[in-house]
């Protein structure tokens, strides 16, 4: 018999794979909505910890998907969620890449790209907002988020430094 939670995780990520316009960061609000508010698979604090782990581990930012799966259904959940997240977009990208040379300068493609750009901006901004609301408790956390935002925009500092400083301040009990 199929584990119903694994089945549900698989369905969720098969769908999100084709909705993740702008990449994995664009679906963070939807993952949070599903996992915390609708399914009650985890708390805000769990979600925030999975996000932190995905940032602290080497690799692409889609790793958050495997950690959500892991939290819900262990190592199997992590592997299955990652596969479900990657397979539909793999097939779509493969097919479009074959036709790309014909398609590249088509007015419709340009309209699709221009039309999706503002929607993507709204999705990524939503991710930042939902993460801030989920993870930041207290003035120090908001100050850290704000300082990182300003530094990332105003300087060419490597993002890993921001994460390291955040980890240090947090471990010292300051965040």
């Amino acid at each position: 018999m199929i584990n119903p939670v694994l089945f549900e995780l698989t369905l969720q990520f098969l769908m999100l794979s084709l909705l993740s316009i702008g990449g994995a960061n664009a679906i963070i609000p939807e993952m949070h909505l599903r996992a915390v508010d609708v399914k009650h698979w985890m708390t805000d604090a769990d979600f925030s910890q999975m996000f932190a782990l995905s940032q602290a581990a080497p690799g692409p930012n889609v790793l958050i998907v495997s950690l959500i799966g892991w939290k819900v259904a262990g190592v199997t959940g992590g592997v299955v969620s990652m596969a479900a997240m990657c397979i539909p977009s793999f097939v779509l990208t493969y097919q479009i890449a074959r036709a790309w040379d014909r398609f590249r300068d088509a007015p419709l493609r340009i309209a699709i790209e221009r039309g999706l750009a503002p929607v993507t901006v709204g999705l990524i901004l939503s991710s930042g907002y939902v993460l801030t609301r989920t993870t930041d408790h207290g003035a120090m956390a908001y100050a850290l988020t704000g300082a990182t935002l300003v530094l990332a925009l105003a300087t060419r500092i490597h993002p890993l430094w921001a994460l390291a400083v955040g980890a240090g301040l947090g471990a010292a009990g300051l965040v």
Partner: protein
Amino acid sequence: MSDGPPVSPNVSIGALFWGFLIVGVSGFGGVMPFAHRMLVEHRRWLTEREFTEALSLSQFLPGPNIVNLSVIVGRRLQGTAGAIVATVGLLLLPLVIVLVLATLFAQVSHVDAVRGACSGVSAAASGLILSVAVKMARPIRRTPPQLAFAAVTFAAIALLRLPLLWVLAVLAPLSIGFAWWKRP
């Protein structure tokens, strides 16, 4: 744009796997700069122009951008097998590492310093994601209708917490239709 040095077209399946395996574990919170360095500068599998085109296609399509890039590059160099090998190579080590980390983390997640470090990393990483959104908004900042589409998307997803499927089903066709109507 310069086409750069000549490209070596004969890339074996093994080299493709190995190249993407190393890219996969090279970065934190995103590995695209390392993919560029490996593909264009070190191994010269793509010219600068080819990389830019593959990148723009991978960002345009849904799915993790770096996975889309590995599909496009793997397919170009070695067909279907190449696409599969590049993608598996890219994700294999990060997936193993993150699941091992998570399992270890479960043992120590009750320690105050560990919980605190997580809060600190999350707070900083949230700021990084906000900065990405601000940078992405720059090209559309002088186009009020596009800013409006971004604002409505934000309101629907972040404030009203509506399901992504329905938000995209309504807003994506409207925004694309508007871009089509306003096409030069």
